[in-house]
């Protein structure tokens, strides 16, 4: 057999072997979690690529925080001092309110829900896949983060952890199509499910009855059901309400309060604090 034909046959065999391997990998990884250790090894090997890819953005952030004028620093410092002063006053009010609530609770026999730790973190990577709304944060199992921990930004509910590694975690954002949050309307205390619809799209409330009392501008908060978020965290504000008479439902969209498209510090709600 000529040399070129032998090479072609060998290449075809190799192609078939690798093709079948890929199909098997795909079938196993799409349906089971057996390949997570292999993924972790490849992820570790690919860390330098991720690091270099994020270098320009990180350098820009670093430059923005280091290269500022004296006046700008002074203004920022003044603003922060004012904020601290205002927040101290709020904390004092809240401490008083908490004592009052505890006294009322004791009188009524109410058992206070255990407090939870909050871990502050930063976004280190954004999933480049345009059909997924996910970020990687710089805290993981070593910092006490668990799967299905709620994640907040300074403005509201941001998402939840779906995979936890040693020092990083993957967070599914509130507006991802696979994310659903049990919520309630602050005004009427009605329970709903808020589902994500992808980037740039508002959240929608599922299965809203035509007779439900919902108005544009109503605040939507977490209901505490599902165990990921405690009750009362701000999810968003009702943006539009449209009656669909033929299906006897209302189409309700909610604008998320969290700034899902900006880089800010995040808080991960940790496990319940032991008394």
């Amino acid at each position: 057999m000529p040399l070129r034909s032998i090479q072609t046959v060998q290449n075809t065999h190799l192609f078939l072997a690798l093709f079948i391997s890929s199909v098997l990998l795909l079938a196993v990884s799409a349906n089971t979690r057996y390949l997570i250790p292999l993924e972790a090894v490849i992820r570790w090997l690919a860390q330098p690529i991720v690091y270099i890819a994020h270098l320009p953005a990180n350098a820009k952030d670093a430059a923005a925080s280091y290269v500022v004028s004296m006046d700008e620093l002074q203004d920022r410092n003044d603003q922060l001092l004012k904020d601290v002063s205002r927040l101290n006053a709020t904390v004092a009010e809240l401490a008083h309110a908490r004592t009052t609530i505890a006294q009322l609770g004791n009188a009524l026999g109410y058992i206070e829900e255990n407090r939870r730790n909050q871990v502050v973190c930063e976004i280190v990577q954004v999933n480049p896949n345009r059909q997924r709304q996910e970020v990687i944060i710089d805290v993981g199992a070593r910092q006490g983060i668990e799967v299905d921990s709620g994640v907040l930004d300074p403005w509201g509910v941001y998402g939840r952890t779906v995979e936890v590694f040693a020092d990083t975690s993957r967070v599914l954002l509130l507006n991802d199509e696979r994310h659903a949050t049990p919520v309630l309307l602050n005004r009427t205390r009605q329970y709903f499910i808020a589902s994500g619809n992808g980037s740039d799209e508002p959240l929608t409330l599922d299965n809203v009855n035509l007779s439900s009392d919902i108005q544009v501008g109503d605040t939507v908060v977490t209901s505490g059901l599902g165990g990921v978020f405690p009750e009362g965290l701000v999810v968003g504000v009702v943006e539009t309400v449209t009656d669909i008479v033929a299906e006897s439902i209302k189409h309700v969209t909610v604008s998320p309060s969290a700034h899902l498209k900006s880089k800010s510090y995040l808080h991960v709600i940790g496990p319940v604090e032991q008394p």
Partner: protein
Amino acid sequence: MTDTQGWSYFLLTIIVALILSVAPMPFDVPDWIRNLKPDWIVLCWFFWIAFQHERCSLIMAFIVGLILDVLYDEPLGINSLLLLALVFAGRFSLRFIQSSVGLRSCIAVLILCFLVTATKSLFLLVTLDVDILISSVVMPPIATLIWWVLLIPLLNSEHSQFRDAVQ
């Protein structure tokens, strides 16, 4: 230029393509601009298939595919499968592509890139129920084609020199 240097160039371009693939865009960029990001990996592999197909080994395509799976956070195997198919299809269409760096190569880039993007989106729809956005299927092949068209004058003017240099 030695064979080792040729391999170094090949590996370097693959690494650069991987870095560009996962390089983040600013948070406030609209989706239509995000969709204009070309498929750097397809562009890079197509370039090497057209000019130095001997270097585009199937094992390398498999490994790069696995790395892409992890970087894109997609099920393990999908990108390796698509890259293997790309290399195999590319080798079969060598005569069609190599005759000139012009219209034919543009058609090949557009079709291959579209097939890769569409197959991946279809797979994600079937397995993970992720909706297919028409813009995210159509725009990356067009962006890749634009980059390829930008490369054509450079490749045509130094085509023979380039081949001599890397061989």
